[in-house]
């Protein structure tokens, strides 16, 4: 076995040092009836490295992907450009194969990167502080709901249905095991119904959770929600699906959000069929001790030199056990490194360009739509809903588009079980070129 360094001579010498005759003796404490016969498990036979490469390559080749098919899919996962340097940095063995930085003296690389990551995330979202990441956007939203319950000591959570249905489902699941209620406020016109949402807030409300831009790509003014939250002492939680938006539009923190959370996948992480991505999580300084997850802080070493450590760990499970702010133990450390590298390469200017082109591509697509298709109106960032006259017309278009190497959109009912079946959720990024839009519109015409 190529990963096992011992020779048989090594093994014999080691057994002798231990004082046993055979390796089997080392397992004598496992009752005999529990031992399974070597080689009896129903697994594949062992493959050498070339065989594994062949197997995975064949599997990969069986798939269509954003490299050979123009990708107009979003819904929380976006095909943005990933510079080669990002992949290089996270392939460095020192980042890739390190554990959680529990020994800070020999983990300053991970720790300084986390500190830079936290700083850039807080700045991009215009919040005071950010943690060192959550698993994904859906779990980050659920954790935000729990955090708001702890801060307010209230047990009522109000969620807009214009929040990604998957974030809602995970949040609903997390809350369902605890006392309290979760209220979902419907929306109309594939946009957020602020009035209905505000009407649902009362003095027992822990938090109101919205998405901005919302699941349908709609951008709206959060100021009225901030006022309503203040009237009732509720926290305002703002989630997001494509963080690239904040290179162009006002950040959630600028509206006074208490907790901001969502996916950082857009910042240098490939779609990867759903993961690993990363959950970004930011809050106000005054709530930092109720924040879940790891955080990195600045300090000094014994010689007075600047250094970084994991800090505020008394919030965490390994110390507070059942009273911890969360059970979370690992984070998405390597994805933090990817985000930090990406943001460093792009800077403010590059982030603005990505956002501006992502939005412009959608605007051009919508401007060219034929009469038999309508797009949800109002301010949209890089995502919207296209509505067809029937399911048959929509599916005919999807099929034709796929034949022309276009993933044209996500059937809305696939993510949102409450939606009817003639809509498509369509997203654009800077990876969409003018010719891709032209081809998309041509396919639409052809499938009328």
């Amino acid at each position, binding site marked *: 076995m190529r990963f096992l360094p011992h020779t048989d001579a090594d093994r014999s010498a080691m057994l002798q040092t231990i004082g046993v005759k055979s390796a089997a003796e080392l397992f004598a404490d496992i009752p005999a009836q529990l031992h399974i016969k070597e080689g009896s498990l129903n697994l594949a036979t062992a493959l050498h490295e070339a065989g594994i490469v062949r197997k995975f390559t064949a599997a990969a080749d069986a798939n269509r992907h954003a490299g050979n098919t123009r990708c107009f899919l979003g819904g929380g996962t976006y095909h943005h450009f990933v510079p080669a340097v990002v992949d290089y940095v996270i392939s460095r063995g020192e980042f890739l194969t390190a554990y959680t930085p529990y020994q800070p003296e020999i983990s300053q690389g991970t720790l300084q990167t986390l500190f830079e990551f936290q700083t850039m995330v807080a700045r991009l979202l215009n919040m005071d502080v950010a943690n060192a990441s959550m698993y994904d956007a859906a779990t980050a939203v659920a954790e935000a709901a729990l955090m708001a319950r702890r801060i307010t000591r209230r047990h009522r959570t109000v969620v807009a249905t214009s929040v990604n249905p998957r974030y809602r489902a995970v949040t609903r699941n997390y809350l369902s095991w605890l006392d309290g209620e979760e209220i979902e406020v419907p929306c109309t016109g594939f946009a957020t119904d602020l009035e209905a949402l505000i009407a649902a807030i009362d003095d027992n409300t822990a938090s109101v959770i919205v998405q901005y831009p919302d699941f349908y790509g709609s951008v709206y003014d959060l100021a009225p929600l901030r006022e309503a939250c203040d009237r009732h002492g509720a926290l305002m939680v703002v989630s997001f699906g494509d963080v690239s938006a904040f290179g162009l539009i006002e950040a959630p923190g600028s509206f006074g959000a208490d907790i901001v959370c969502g996916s950082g996948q857009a910042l240098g992480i490939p779609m990867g069929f759903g993961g690993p991505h990363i959950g970004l999580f930011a809050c106000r300084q005054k709530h930092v*001790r109720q924040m879940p997850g790891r955080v990195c802080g600045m300090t000094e070493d014994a010689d007075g030199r600047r250094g970084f450590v994991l800090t505020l*760990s*008394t919030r965490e499970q390994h*110390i*507070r056990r059942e009273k911890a702010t969360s059970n979370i133990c690992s984070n998405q450390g390597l994805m933090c490194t990817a985000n930090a590298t990406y943001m460093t390469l792009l800077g403010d200017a590059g982030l603005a360009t990505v956002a501006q082109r992502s939005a412009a591509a959608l605007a051009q697509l919508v401007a060219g739509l034929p009469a038999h298709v309508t797009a949800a109106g109002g301010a949209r960032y890089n995502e919207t809903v296209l509505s067809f006259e029937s399911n048959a017309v929509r599916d005919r278009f999807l099929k034709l588009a796929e034949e022309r190497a276009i993933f044209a959109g996500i059937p809305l009912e696939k993510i949102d079980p409450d939606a009817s079946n003639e809509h498509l959720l369509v997203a654009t990024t800077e990876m969409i070129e003018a010719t891709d839009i032209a081809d998309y519109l041509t396919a639409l015409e052809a499938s009328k």
Partner: protein
Amino acid sequence: MSIPADLKYTKEHEWVRIEGDIATLGISDHAQEALGDIVFVELPEVGRKLAAGEAFAVVESVKAVSDVYAPVGGEVIEVNSALENAPEQVNGEPYGNGWIAKVKMSGESVELMDEAAYATFLEE
């Protein structure tokens, strides 16, 4: 190890100074030393009603966290808000500037020990 004679102590290592119906509460020198450098004290809200034995504050060091239990029942009338910015006062002066809260007593108290009993308890 300092154990002032004018205070009473609990098995959870809180101290209480009783003056009339007002009780001042904190953690003992032994407790602060066992915890190490204290980095944060979570204070109760003024006006909160406490039952004797109820956890009312949390004291945190870098690697440990400890609930502080009310030696006596009553209503919190004052908290030591200086600890918000200077939690190290609990280490430096556990019986002085490191006090945590003042309670207007009503009802029961947990079993309290005097100086000698607490010293014996610590030895055990």
